[in-house]
C-alpha cells in the first residue's frame, strides 16, 4: 500500500496549473459563451439555454449524431476484429518478423493528421497508382458525388490510420500471457476458439478497453480526414458532429458553436465515465492496467 499523504498535491501543482490554464479555463469559457449571443466582444447578450434548445430542435443535429454513431460503429466493427486477428497472426511468425510488421503498421500513427487524407487522395487521383489500378479494372471511385463511395473512402482511410494502434496494443497484451496458460490449455486439449475465448481474450481485455475508448472517441469526433476528403459532402452525407461544430466556428457563430462544443464534450465525458465504471466493475483490483 502507498502511504496516505495529502501533501502530495504539492507535487501535482505544476501539472494542475497547466491543465487549469489550457483545459479547464477554456472549457468554462465555452460553457459561458454557450449561454450568450455574441455579436462582438463588447456586444454580448444573455440568451439562457436558447442555443441548446435550437440545436436539439434541428433535425440536422440528430442526423449528424446518427451519422457519427454509425461511423463509430462501422469503424470499430472493422478495426477491432481485424486488428486482433492480425495480432494473433503476428504471434505465430516469430519476434523479428512481428517487430518489423508492428513498426510498419505504426507508421500511419505518426503521419501529420492533415496529410492522412492527402496521401490517399494522391494515391487515387487518376494519375496515381491507385487510380490507374482502379481504371485498369474499369472501376470508378466517385468520392466527390457518390455518398457510398465517400463513406467507403473515409472508412478505408480511418482504418489505414488506426489499424496499427489496435494491433500494437492487442499484440502487447498477447505477449504478456504466461506460457503456462497455453500449456494448461494443451493438456485439456482445448480448441483454438476455446483458447481465444477463455485465455487470450480475458488476458488482453485491459489493452482492448483502451483501444475501445480511444477509437470510440476519436471516430465519434473525426474531423480532419472527413474535412479534407469531401468537407461533409455530398449533400451532408458525411457531415458528422465535429463538422457541424467546425462550420459554426468558421461562421463566427460563437454562441451556437459553444453550445455545440458543450454537447459534444458531454458525449465524450459520458463515454469516459462509462469506460471507467465498466473497468472498475470488470476489475475489482482497482483497474490498474500494465
Amino acid at each position, binding site marked *: 500500500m502507498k502511504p496516505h499523504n495529502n501533501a502530495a498535491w504539492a507535487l501535482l501543482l505544476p501539472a494542475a496549473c497547466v491543465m487549469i490554464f489550457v483545459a479547464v479555463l477554456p472549457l468554462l469559457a465555452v460553457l459561458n459563451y454557450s449561454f450568450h449571443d455574441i455579436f462582438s466582444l463588447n456586444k454580448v447578450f444573455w440568451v439562457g439555454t436558447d442555443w441548446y434548445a435550437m440545436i436539439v430542435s434541428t433535425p440536422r443535429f440528430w442526423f449528424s449524431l446518427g451519422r457519427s454513431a454509425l461511423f463509430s460503429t462501422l469503424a470499430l466493427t472493422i478495426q477491432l476484429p481485424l486488428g486482433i486477428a492480425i495480432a494473433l497472426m503476428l504471434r505465430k511468425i516469430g519476434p523479428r518478423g512481428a517487430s518489423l510488421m508492428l513498426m510498419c503498421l505504426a507508421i500511419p500513427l505518426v503521419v501529420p493528421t492533415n496529410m492522412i487524407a492527402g496521401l490517399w487522395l494522391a494515391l487515387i487521383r487518376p494519375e496515381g497508382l491507385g487510380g490507374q489500378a482502379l481504371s485498369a479494372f474499369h472501376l470508378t471511385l466517385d468520392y466527390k458525388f457518390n455518398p457510398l463511395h465517400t463513406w467507403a473512402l473515409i472508412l478505408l482511410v480511418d482504418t489505414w490510420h488506426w489499424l496499427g494502434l489496435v494491433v500494437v496494443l492487442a499484440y502487447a497484451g498477447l505477449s504478456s500471457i504466461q506460457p503456462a496458460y497455453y500449456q494448461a490449455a494443451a493438456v485439456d486439449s482445448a480448441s483454438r476458439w476455446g483458447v481465444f475465448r477463455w485465455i487470450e481474450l480475458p488476458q488482453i481485455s485491459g489493452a482492448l478497453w483502451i483501444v475501445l475508448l480511444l477509437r470510440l472517441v*476519436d471516430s465519434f469526433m473525426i474531423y480532419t480526414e472527413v474535412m479534407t476528403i469531401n468537407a461533409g459532402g455530398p449533400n451532408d452525407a458525411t457531415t458528422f458532429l465535429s463538422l457541424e461544430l467546425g462550420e459554426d466556428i468558421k461562421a463566427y457563430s460563437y454562441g451556437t458553436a459553444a453550445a455545440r462544443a458543450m454537447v459534444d464534450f458531454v458525449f465524450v465525458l459520458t463515454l469516459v465515465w462509462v469506460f471507467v465504471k465498466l473497468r472498475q466493475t470488470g476489475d475489482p483490483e482497482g483497474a490498474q492496467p500494465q
Partner: protein
Amino acid sequence: MNHAGVLRLVACIVLASFVLLPLGQAIVLSFTATLEADGVPMGSVGFHNYLNILRTPELRASVGNSVTYVLLNVAFCLIAGLPAAYGLARYSFIGDRHFLMFLLAFRVTPPVVLSLPIFILFARAGLVNSPIGIALVHCVFNLPIAIWILESFIAAIPRSFDEMAFLDGHSRTGFFVRFLIPAIAPGIAVAAFFCFIFSWVEVVFARILTVTAGKPITQAITALFTFRTDWGLVMAMTVFSLIPGVLMIFLVRNQIARGFVIRT
C-alpha cells in the same frame, strides 16, 4: 514451409502493401517533377522538389517553427509531469483517482471542442502566433500521457530506493536530479518521444493559434494546395514531415504500446 506458414506470409505481404502503398506513392511523387518550372521538364526524376523546400523561405521557416514548439512542449510536459507522476506513484491522497479521471477526460477531448475559447483566451494573453502558445495548448493531451508513462516507470522502482537517498540526507530536489531522473531515464525518453510525436502531428490547435506568423509544417503543406497544386512539392514536404515519426518508431519499437496506455 507448411500451408499455414505460406498463408501467413501472404497475409503479411498484403498487409504491408496496404500500409506502405500511400507512402510509396508519396515517395515516388516527391522525386518527380509534377509542374513545369525552373526549366525542369514534367515527369523528370530527381531531388528538385527537396531542393525547392530549401529554396522556399516559408517552408524553411515552418520547419523551424514546428521544431521550436514541439521541443518546448516536450520540456513543459516533462517539467510539470515528473513531480506529478512521482506524487501519483508514491502516495495516495484525497482526489488522486479523480485527478487521473480528470486527465483522462481531457486526454480524449477532441481539440475542435476547445479550439474556439483557446483562441480567444490566448489572443488576450498574447500567445497567438507564438510557439509558446502552441506548446502550452498541446499539454492538454500530452501532459496526461507524460504523467501516465512516467508514473509507470517510477512505480516499477522500489520505494526503498527513495528512502535510502533521503536517509543519506538528500533533499527532495537533490533526490530528483541525482537519483530519480537517472534511474528512470528510459521512461523519460519514452515520454519525450510520445509528446514529441503527438505534438508534431496535431493540426487543429496549431492552425487556430497561428494566424499570421509561426506557421508549422502541417500548415505550410496545406498552403501548398492551390488551383495548380504542385503534388511533387506537397509530397516532398510530407515525406520530410514523416522523418521524425519514423525515426521514433524505430527507437521505441518495443515500447510503442506505452504511448497509448491510459491510467484510471
